[in-house]
């Protein structure tokens, strides 16, 4: 009797486990179809031969990667040299995305801290205010930004009007304009996770630090920042990754000189002039780079956590 009851119970537990597995199926399906599927397609396309009017010919080829890394002269018959064009674009993308991330951290952190230290009932209002501009399409926002920043735009008019400068500052078509654009595009992705982290922060720790003779600045550096670091790291990743592949801000605000990897990829697929395998290869390289950076930051995080404990 007892054995029967016991096996009956475990059978029920198994059924329950099975049911749970099936319930997760939709999530797995969505992930498979919309994440893994496109990545696999990209991977396959990057190893195919290009069709001149866009599209691919189903013939395996390494031409896309070869074109990315090696320069074989105009007619492709010279000995291969390292191709700097695309590596430079890549490097610029990393640099620009990094600068934009830093900028959003510098502005986003105090903003998030400010919101998290308001009375509980007004915090949602502040968060809502932060997100309002993002109800407007990114393209429109970026174009508006260009108008604001251009030589005859309101910013320069204002600065000249106050007598701070005599002639307009050229901002549009510089690296800085791109950084500003990226910063503005992704600022909420910094503010929200940092805000969540600061809101969870136990402010009596700050009091304890002040009680133990730490100045405000030291308290921020030694106590607050380590406590909210997970939020800061999440914010940095959420700004850095989309900035790397962004093409709107570089296109509209950076001009031809400040080409980024996102624009390069975009061009390969737009219209008939593109090169799909090359775009796919560049995407794969971008994906690999981002994964390496994420893994590196995760390992650093684990290391500092371990060193601390």
């Amino acid at each position, binding site marked *: 009797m007892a054995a029967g009851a016991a096996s009956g119970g475990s059978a029920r537990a198994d059924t329950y486990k099975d049911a749970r597995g099936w319930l997760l199926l939709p999530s797995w399906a969505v992930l498979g179809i919309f994440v893994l599927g496109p990545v696999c397609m990209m991977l396959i396309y990057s190893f195919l031969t290009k069709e001149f009017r866009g599209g691919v010919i189903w013939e395996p080829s390494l031409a896309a990667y070869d074109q990315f890394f090696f320069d074989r002269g105009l007619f492709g018959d010279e000995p291969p040299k390292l191709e700097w064009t695309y590596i430079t674009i890549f490097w610029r993308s990393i640099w620009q995305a990094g600068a934009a991330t830093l900028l959003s951290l510098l502005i986003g952190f105090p903003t998030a801290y400010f919101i998290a230290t308001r009375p509980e009932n007004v915090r949602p209002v502040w968060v809502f205010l932060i997100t309002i501009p993002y109800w407007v399409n990114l393209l429109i926002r970026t174009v508006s930004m260009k108008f604001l920043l251009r030589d005859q735009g309101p910013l320069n008019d204002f600065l000249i009007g106050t007598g701070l400068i005599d002639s307009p500052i050229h901002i549009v078509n510089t690296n800085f304009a791109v950084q500003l654009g990226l910063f503005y595009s992704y600022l909420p992705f910094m503010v929200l996770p940092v805000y969540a982290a600061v809101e969870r922060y*136990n402010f*009596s*720790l700050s*009091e*304890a*630090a*002040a*009680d*133990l*003779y*730490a*100045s405000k600045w*030291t308290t921020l550096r*030694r*106590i607050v920042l*380590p*406590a909210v670091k997970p939020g800061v790291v999440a914010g940095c990743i959420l700004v850095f990754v989309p900035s790397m592949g962004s093409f709107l801000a570089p296109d509209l605000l950076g001009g031809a000189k400040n080409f980024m990897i996102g624009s390069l990829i975009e061009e390969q697929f737009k219209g008939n002039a593109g090169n799909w395998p090359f775009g796919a290869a560049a995407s794969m390289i971008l994906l690999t780079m981002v994964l390496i950076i994420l893994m590196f930051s995760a390992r650093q995080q684990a290391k500092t956590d371990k060193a*601390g*404990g």
Partner: protein
Amino acid sequence: MPSNKTDAIDVRNAVKRYGDFTALKRISLTIKDNEFFTLLGPSGCGKTTLLRMIAGFEDVTEGEILLYGDEIEKLPPHQRPVNTVFQNYALFPHMTILDNVAFGLEMRGKSKADARKRAGEMLELVQLSQFAARKPSQLSGGQQQRVALARALAPQPKVLLLDEPLSALDLKLRKAMQLELKHLQRETGITFIFVTHDQEEALTMSDRIAVMSAGEMQQLGTPTEIYEQPRNMFVADFIGETNLLEVSVDQVMNGRATCHLGGGHALTCNSVDGIGEGAKVHMSVRPERLFMSDAPVEAESLKGRVAENIFVGTDISTLVDLAEGPQFIVRTSNSDRGNKRIFEPGSEIFVNMELGAGRLLMD
């Protein structure tokens, strides 16, 4: 008032207002050097506010706070040579125990090596040396409590502030920590200001107690004074258990008062300043200073009927419905069972007060 360099803390006419709400109504008190001083009161009485004003976390609306003769009420917390043990300990979660204790020393300009050496000594003092490399989350509540104590004591503050530090511990651990705190205070010679709502804890540990209620100080004195000579209703009721009787005062002479109950029964008891003839006030008598008998034995005998006997370990509490008054609690210590009688519920008995046990109270 001249500033006194030997008093640890001198609070002068301190007022704290939050908008319309007055949390502290003009408090003045002096805490002596090397004293274990307790601020006692129910939650919301302003005791924590006063402590936080001394620490610097709340600004003082009006009045002054002096630390060994120096005005400190305008200094930010990190410039005040006082340290706090927080109610929730507030240990830095990302630092080891050793680094937590060393933090204050480092901030006071000690080298990392020196700070750690001294922190190690402090951990030895609270018997936690073997946990130096752990994180706070790996320690039990009692251990975290001792780390918080070591951290606050490490920079050798002039005054140590303790904000209900034992409230999160279970009873046994709390009793042990009470003794440990008392020992630490004697060993270090640092002035302790202890905030609690637990009157028993206050009586056990303190040299002097300030009883607070509704932002006002009700009484300041040694534990014995507070317990045996409560000044008013609030103090008598809040500290320990007490029986209250409504009486009319007939005559006051040499600190003794003759009065009568509503029914005319006459009683003699101790009076306090400010109570005159004809006043209608309360008389308080502690349950352990009452005993029962089947015939009246003293002048202060009150007729009653036993309602219930409650066994509470060391004592038996007997609830007695008085013929001419409310229900009284009579406490009989189990060690007294030889000479004091316990009666079955329903028995008609007399409740007798020991001589000088009754005491009049201001409202």
